[in-house]
């Protein structure tokens, strides 16, 4: 009997240890200091009532200029395990000074996915971006919605409305569930709410931030819906010539359903674009999966894979640090907005205060994160 009690106590201790770690990770609050142009903070549930009060009823930061113009949607955190996208969107929400037009910023499009890490993946639960005031901690997150919020997965996932058969696990993947379904799963409802936001706010361009493993052919690129092909091509040319890095253009394939760059463009009047930056942390051949790899992007095994010609992007011992990845996203957005505004003066979106690639690489991402301790608690928002 004593032995059983001892073993049960050991099991309880293990469950407590693990449970506390999971609880802390799921409930880590990330403070955001709204920037000078944030005129209001809506909720995604405002655009689709059934989402209200759920884990994915996330903040929508509305940045407005003094003059009217076009409307842009920036989607961060579609895949929270691709942090450069969230951080780039964060920089816009905290720093942008709008002169013309509006920008809607969602930092954590799939908040549920940000509260879990990959099962069996040994991911770190969180990471910290160093700043002059100490550092800001973010949840690590995963590619898929948390099974605590949407479970079980079916044997077969049929995308709505096309009924295309996709990988079963992608029923929890926000970027395989667009344009969404009002009576569907949490992930489908979230996509539906985002699509409704785009329709009701008459968004001109929806841009979805991502990162990709170097073994994935769609990398360092802008994936563009046919409506945005010219805009993406022009941005690619300008970026490659003046920003200090190269970025390609891919056409959104018609035959692959559920992705934001295809479905948003098909279902709404908006141009839909998706940005990919390189993230060695996601590569299957990576070594230890830790915070250093996430932030420095250095991995000897991925480098070896590159030397054997197995990658679709270059990598060397310098890796792909987070600042380079974030800077690629901020500069790409700025170039897209500048070209769009030049071509569409009545729908221009003009802003300042956002660092370009060179600035982020030189000063670090943390230089553009605001210290929440300097702001009245009532003015903070939490992700």
């Amino acid at each position, binding site marked *: 009997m004593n*032995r*059983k009690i001892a*073993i*049960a106590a*050991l*099991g309880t201790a*293990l*469950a407590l240890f*693990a*449970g506390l770690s*999971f*609880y802390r990770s*799921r409930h880590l609050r990330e403070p955001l200091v709204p920037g000078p142009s944030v005129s209001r903070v809506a909720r995604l549930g405002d655009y689709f009532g059934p989402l209200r009060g759920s884990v994915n009823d996330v903040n929508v930061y509305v940045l407005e200029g003094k003059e009217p113009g076009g409307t842009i949607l920036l989607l961060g955190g579609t895949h929270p395990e691709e942090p450069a996208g969230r951080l780039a969107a964060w920089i816009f929400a905290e720093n942008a000074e709008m002169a013309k037009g509006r920008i809607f910023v969602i930092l954590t499009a799939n908040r549920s996915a940000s509260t*879990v890490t990959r099962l069996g993946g040994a991911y770190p639960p969180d990471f910290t971006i160093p700043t002059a005031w100490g550092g800001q901690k973010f949840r690590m997150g995963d590619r898929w919605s948390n099974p*605590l919020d949407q*479970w*079980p997965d079916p044997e077969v996932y049929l995308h709505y409305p096309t009924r295309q058969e996709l990988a079963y696990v992608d029923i929890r993947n926000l970027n395989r569930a667009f344009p969404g379904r009002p009576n*569907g*799963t949490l992930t489908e409802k979230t996509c539906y709410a985002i699509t409704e936001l785009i329709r009701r706010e008459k968004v001109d361009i929806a841009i979805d931030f991502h990162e990709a493993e170097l073994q994935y052919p769609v990398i360092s690129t802008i994936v563009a819906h046919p409506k945005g092909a010219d805009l993406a091509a022009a941005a690619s040319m300008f970026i490659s010539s003046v920003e200090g890095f190269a970025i390609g253009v891919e056409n959104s394939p018609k035959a692959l359903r559920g992705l934001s760059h295809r479905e948003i463009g098909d279902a709404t009047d908006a141009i839909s674009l998706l940005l990919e930056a390189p993230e060695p942390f996601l590569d299957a051949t990576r070594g230890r999966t830790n915070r250093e790899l996430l932030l420095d992007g250095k991995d000897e095994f991925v480098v070896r894979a590159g030397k054997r010609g197995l990658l679709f992007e270059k990598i060397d011992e310098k890796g792909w640090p987070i600042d380079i990845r974030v800077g690629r996203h901020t500069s790409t957005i700025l170039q897209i907005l500048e070209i769009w505004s030049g071509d569409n003066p009545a729908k221009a979106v003009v802003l300042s205060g956002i660092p370009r690639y060179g600035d982020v690489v030189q000063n670090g991402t943390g230089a553009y994160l605001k210290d929440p301790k300097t702001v009245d608690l009532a003015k903070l928002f939490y992700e």
Partner: protein
Amino acid sequence: MYAIVTVLYYLLTAYVAVLLVANFLKDREWQKEILYIIVLIPFVLRLLRLK
């Protein structure tokens, strides 16, 4: 429909957890007792909505 399936899965999880506890109490080999307890942990974490 999805909500009903989810509830059924939680009931299944609770059922398996009860079976594991019953087997843990019944068994006399310490190796199997440890095995039952370790296998039980993810079921408990799911029922408590921690993982």
